[in-house]
């Protein structure tokens, strides 16, 4: 704990700071040791390995591997590989649509589920259900619902005299349609928002009541600011996961129609496991890594101006 420093010791402040810092460092490392060790043992190795592989012509089945420097990267940036830029474009489009949609809709649903409604346990479970239905079953259901002729969704739209869509079967609407199907799985994001909302002390709302403020005032001045750490978390996570969208292409569209849903990680996986070009696929992976890192960094940077930590932020 605190060391006993004699009153007339020379330069007391500097020594105190040094000791406390060392103690903090020690405990900091101690507490985070599991995670850091885990990273070193289980993650760093494969990550470094994949980077090294990206500098080779590694084909899983070949006996020999040769170092080819940055040839893989040259190849993908040069435009020789059309699928590279195409899949990047497709993925960007998806991210731009999905991240805001997911965050906003999850937040609204969480607000609804946080109200004092009697059956909210039931509602919460129902909303989380699609996230745990096995992916195989989900895919079949979507193909079915989105059938342009007889699917439930178009039938409902027809009934409401609204225009129908070709959904995932048309080049123009395939990405928005896929964004729509992913919205089903927002149960997790909603839960996290709920946990965040539950941490807002009731006194704050009561104070607004006393002052005569309404729901809008509460939302704008209490709820949203208090929940910014959660919004921040969900934003970062949604960005990271949206860039790596894969299942929808793998199960539903196989990248079509006309390569318009050729998501980057789907293309990468195809290169790695169908074409067995693991070295090139690793290069693709690291390009995506840098892109995601850049975006995440931007969000972190911006967080200082809009995220409010009740606890004052990181210690």
């Amino acid at each position, binding site marked *: 704990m605190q060391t006993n420093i004699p009153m007339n010791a020379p330069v007391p402040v500097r020594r105190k700071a040094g000791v406390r810092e060392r103690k903090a460092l020690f405990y900091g490392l101690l507490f985070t040791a599991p995670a850091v060790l885990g990273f070193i043992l289980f993650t760093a190795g494969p990550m470094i390995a994949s980077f090294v592989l990206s500098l080779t012509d590694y084909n899983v089945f070949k006996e020999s591997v040769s170092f080819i420097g940055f040839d893989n990267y040259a190849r993908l940036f040069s435009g020789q590989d059309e699928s590279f830029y195409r899949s990047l474009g497709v993925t960007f489009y998806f991210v731009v649509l999905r991240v805001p949609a997911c965050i906003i809709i999850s937040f609204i649903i969480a607000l609804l589920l946080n109200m004092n409604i009697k059956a909210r346990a039931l509602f919460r479970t129902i909303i989380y259900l699609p996230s745990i239905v096995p992916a195989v079953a989900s895919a079949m259901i979507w*193909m*079915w619902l989105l059938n342009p002729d007889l699917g439930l969704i178009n039938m409902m739209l027809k009934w409401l005299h609204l225009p129908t869509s*070709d959904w995932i079967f048309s080049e123009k609407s395939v990405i928005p349609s896929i964004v729509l199907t992913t919205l089903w799985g927002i149960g997790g994001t909603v839960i996290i928002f709920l946990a965040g909302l539950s941490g807002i002390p009731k006194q704050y709302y009561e104070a607004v009541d006393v002052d005569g403020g309404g729901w809008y005032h509460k939302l704008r001045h209490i709820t949203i600011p208090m929940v910014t750490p959660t919004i921040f978390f969900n934003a970062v996570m949604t960005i990271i996961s949206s860039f790596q969208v894969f299942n929808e292409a793998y199960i539903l569209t196989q990248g079509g*129609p006309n390569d318009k849903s050729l998501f980057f990680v789907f293309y990468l996986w195809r290169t790695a496991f169908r074409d067995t070009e693991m070295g090139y696929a690793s290069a693709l992976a690291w390009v995506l890594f840098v892109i995601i890192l850049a975006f995440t960094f931007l969000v972190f940077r911006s967080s200082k101006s809009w995220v409010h930590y009740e606890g004052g932020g990181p210690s």
Partner: protein
Amino acid sequence: MIKKHRKPLTAAIAFLLTAGLLLSACTWSEESGGPAAGSADKGGTQAAAGEQIKLRLTLWGAPNEIAVNKKVIARFEAEHPNVKVELQQIPTDYDTKLTTMVAGNDEPDVAMMESATIAFPLAEQGKFLNLQEFLDKDPEIKADSLVPNITYSSEPGNIIGIAPGPESFTLFYNEDAFKEAGLTPPPSKVTEAWTWEQFVDTAKKLTLDNKGRNADDPNFDPKNIKQYGVNPGNWWGAYSSFIFSNGGDFVSPDGKTFALNQPEAVEALQNIADLINKYHVAPSPLQAKNIPATNVALQTRKVAMVIDGQWNTSTLAESKVHFNVGVLPVMKKPATTVVCAMFSIFKSTKHPQESWELLKALIDPDASIEMLTYGTWMPSLKDWYTDDALLSKWAVNQPSRPSGYKDAVIDVVLNHSHATPTGYVKNFNKIMDIVNPAMDNVWLGKTTAKEAMDSIAAKAQAQVQGRRDVK
């Protein structure tokens, strides 16, 4: 308040910890001791007579297919008491898992392989044994005991895999639909096969809109079709038969040139596209993706005819629909593509001879008789197609084998079958990565087949790397 929360929390953690440890201790020790067990029984020494040998077989399949394979293994082990077969079922992502195993030097002895994916990349790195040598020496079966087009070679003379049986494409139809329309059903004999024009004509008469008008009717409403004349399928498996029938191919005979833009192939592709967009007798890709499995499509009369693989005979029989099979319409000459997965033997096996025996057992029609009568599979050996006694075991008086089967399927497989392009076109996948998006537009009626293939010919040509069946 803090203290109150602590007790239940601690108690909960303690309980979980104990429960977890107990459970793990029990189960881990049961399964022949944790970490080392897995690697311990791999590998053995040379197969000395009477010594216990272990073979590893990987496959995929639904429980009913696996059940049949397990019976095959049981019979095999009974006949070869010194051999034990460890069946490793890989339920999903087969290629990913197998690739990982190969990377980790954990290859099985015998593995099921798919020609469209990693079979040839593995073969090109010399990972498989050449089965030609085994066929040459084997007393029971020879290369020509096998039905045509069920062996896969990475180059002439180097057989890398043999299929347990072929699968071919044929014309399924709903007999009731034909009766009600008063039309003669498709012929089953190759000699009587329809021409493409006859085929289209019949399809038109069988395409009904929601008011019962067929496609010949001037008031026909193509936006409200209740029953399609035919679903021809729009993947290479389905349309390749017609490309071959018209004298075309995916690459030139010497393997050096891309050939889907040649007149024969273009004409075949355009003919199929016209079914959708010109004559409105076939569903567009939008609708086709949602036409349920062939058996349901025919049962619910969503389509009157379907061009699909013979494996559908099993589910059609189960659906109790009055179905039959006809021979595919002929453009210039009769042809059907044969597709199938294969069994291969890894070169790293320590017991090549026993692995070969296992492979033979797996492709032995007698062992898989249930799947043959059920309808999903066809036999691998030629005499099962020609010898009456053998035919009666799987193709006569079976609900899955209707009256047209012998002529439309058996005869065609024997005499007019064509190898699958995945088997002989090198770099097939990368070529099709370019062809498929272009074909998407052809099926949608946005471009003609000629325009589409011409536009991608140069890019596709860049991916052509030759053929496996020419030296």
